[in-house]
C-alpha cells in the first residue's frame, strides 16, 4: 500500500545494493530526480534495466552505481552517444559493465511477461539478427500448435521499478497520461515500486480508461515537482532539448563529468537544490 514519503526516504527504504532496478519512461516522464537520489545515496552493484538508457543512466553508470545493464537502445536521442555508457563498455570505466542487450520489441514483451506472471515472453523477433548469437537470454521455441519458430526472452521482474507520473491523490493512487512507454508493465512486474509525481491532489479525476496505478500496487509516492526534467511531463513542462545537447560536452571526458556530478548531484541536498545549482551554473 502506497505511503506518501520523501524521495530520500523512499530510495533509502526500497533500494539496496545489488538490486535489479528499472527506471522507465520512454522519452517522456523519465524519473531523473529519483535516479539522482540513487546516486546521492551511493547505491552500488545495481542491475539497471531500461529500454532506452538515457542521460540518467549515463549518470548512474558514470557514477559507478551499476554492475549490469539490460537495455535495447543506449544513445542520447537526436544528439549522439552516451559517453559514460560507451566508456564503461569500451574501457570498463569506472568499472566493468555487463550488458544484456535486446530489441525494443523484446524488452516491451519481457515487461508484459513480468507483469503477467509468466516466465518468458514470445515474439516474432530477432530473425536474421546477430543479437541472439551473443546472448543466452534470447532463444527460440517452437509453437506447440503450428510448429512455427518464435523468439523467447525471459520475463523482466525488477526488485524495484521507479517511474514518474503527473498526479497522485492523497491515498497514493497514481495517474499518468501521454506517452506511457512500459511504465504500467514495469510497475506491475516489480516487487516494489516508487512513483514520483508532479502534484498531489484531493481528487484524481481519472478518465474511465486512464492509466491509473492503484495505491495497492505502489510502495511509495513522492512529491517531486519537475522530477522528470530534462525530459518532460505532458501538461506540465516541455522537454529541455538544450540540456540533452549540453550533456554531450558535460559527459564526454571523465574529469569534467566527475566534477559536474560532484557539484550538481553529490553535493546537492535534493532535487530542488540540484535545480538551483543548475540554474546558477547556467547564469
Amino acid at each position, binding site marked *: 500500500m502506497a505511503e506518501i514519503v520523501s524521495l530520500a526516504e523512499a530510495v533509502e527504504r526500497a533500494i539496496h545494493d545489488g538490486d535489479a532496478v528499472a527506471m522507465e519512461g*520512454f*522519452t*517522456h516522464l523519465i524519473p531523473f530526480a529519483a535516479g539522482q537520489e540513487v546516486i546521492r545515496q551511493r547505491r552500488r552493484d545495481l542491475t539497471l534495466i531500461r*529500454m*532506452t538508457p538515457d542521460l540518467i543512466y549515463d549518470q548512474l553508470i558514470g557514477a559507478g552505481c551499476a554492475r549490469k545493464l539490460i*537495455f*535495447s*537502445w*543506449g*544513445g542520447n*536521442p*537526436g*544528439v549522439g*552517444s*552516451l559517453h559514460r*555508457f*560507451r566508456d564503461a*563498455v*569500451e574501457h570498463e570505466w569506472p568499472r566493468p559493465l555487463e550488458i544484456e*542487450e*535486446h*530489441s*525494443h*520489441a523484446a524488452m*516491451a*514483451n519481457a*515487461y*508484459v511477461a513480468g507483469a503477467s506472471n509468466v516466465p518468458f515472453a514470445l*515474439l*516474432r*523477433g*530477432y*530473425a*536474421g*539478427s*546477430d*543479437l541472439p548469437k*551473443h546472448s543466452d537470454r534470447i532463444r527460440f521455441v517452437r509453437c506447440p500448435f503450428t510448429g512455427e519458430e518464435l523468439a523467447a526472452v525471459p520475463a523482466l521482474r525488477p526488485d524495484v521499478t521507479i517511474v514518474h507520473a503527473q498526479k497522485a491523490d492523497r491515498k497514493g493512487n497514481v495517474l499518468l497520461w*501521454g*506517452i*506511457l*512507454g*512500459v511504465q*504500467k*508493465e514495469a510497475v506491475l512486474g516489480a516487487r516494489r515500486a516508487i512513483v514520483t509525481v508532479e502534484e498531489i491532489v484531493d481528487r484524481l479525476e481519472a478518465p474511465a480508461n486512464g492509466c491509473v496505478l492503484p495505491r495497492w500496487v505502489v510502495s511509495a509516492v513522492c512529491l517531486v515537482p519537475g522530477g522528470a526534467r530534462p525530459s*518532460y511531463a*505532458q501538461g506540465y513542462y*516541455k*522537454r529541455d*532539448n*538544450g540540456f*540533452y*545537447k549540453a550533456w554531450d560536452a558535460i559527459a564526454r571526458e571523465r574529469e569534467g563529468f566527475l566534477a559536474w556530478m560532484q557539484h550538481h548531484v553529490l553535493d546537492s541536498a535534493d532535487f530542488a537544490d540540484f535545480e538551483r545549482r543548475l540554474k546558477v551554473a547556467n547564469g
Partner: protein
Amino acid sequence: MADRDYTAEEMMTVAAARQLANGTVCFVGIGLPSAAANLARLTHAPEIVLIYESGTIGTRPDVLPLSIGDGELAETADSVVSVPEMFRYWLQGGRVDIGFLGAAQVGRFGNINTTVIGDYQRPKVRLPGAGGAPEIATSCGEVFIMLRHGKRALVDRLDFISSVGFLTGGDARDRLGLGGRGPTRIITDLGILEPDPASREFTLTTLHSGADPDRAKNETGWPLKIAASLAVTPPPTEAELTSLRELKARTARAHGSAL
C-alpha cells in the same frame, strides 16, 4: 551544377519524401527518415499515417522531434498507445506498410548495423544498439533505409547485423520465412540504390540531379553496380524546398538551434 540553389542533403530528403505515397502507413525512425516522412506529409501525401515507436499513431508534428517521443508527437497524434501495444498489435500485427529506418552502417545486401564497430565483446566503438529496428525490418511490408553516402556508411561486410536485410543475398532472406519484402531501397544524398532481383546486392538505380555517378562508386564500400537504365531524380521543386526549409526553420526555433 554550380548554380543549383539546394544542398545535397535537401535533395536527399526530397527524394526520400517522394518515395512515400499518400495514404501509406509508415513506421518512422528518428533523424533523416523523420524529416523526409514529414516533408511527404506536408507536400504530396497529406493522408500518410506516421507512426513513431514511442506509441504515437497518425501524428502530425508541426516541428521535427529531436527524440522519438517528443511531446509534439503525442499532442498531434490520432492516438497514443503504450510501447508494448505498439510493438505487439501494430507492428507485429502487420499493420505497417513501410518501415523507414536510418542506420550507422548498411551492407551490400541491405543488412543494418547499429550495434558495434569491431568485436561485440570488445568493441572499438559501441553504437547505441538495435532499438526497434530488428522487428521493424521484419514486420513491415517493405523497408526504406536512409543515410548519407560514404565508404564507412555503405560497407561491404558489416561487423554486426543488428537488423536483417537480405542476409548473404540471393534467397537467404526468403529462407527465414519472413513476411514483407525487406529493404527495397536505400536513399542517400547521391542517389537511390535498389536490390538486384536475383543477387539482392544493392545497385545504383537512380542518381540525384547534379550528383556524380563516379563519386557514388568511390563512396561505396562494395564495387557498386550502376543500372543500365539509370534514372535521374528531378531537382526539388520550389514548393518542396519551401516546405522543407520552413519545417527546418520552425524546428530550429523550437529546439534552440538548427538540427
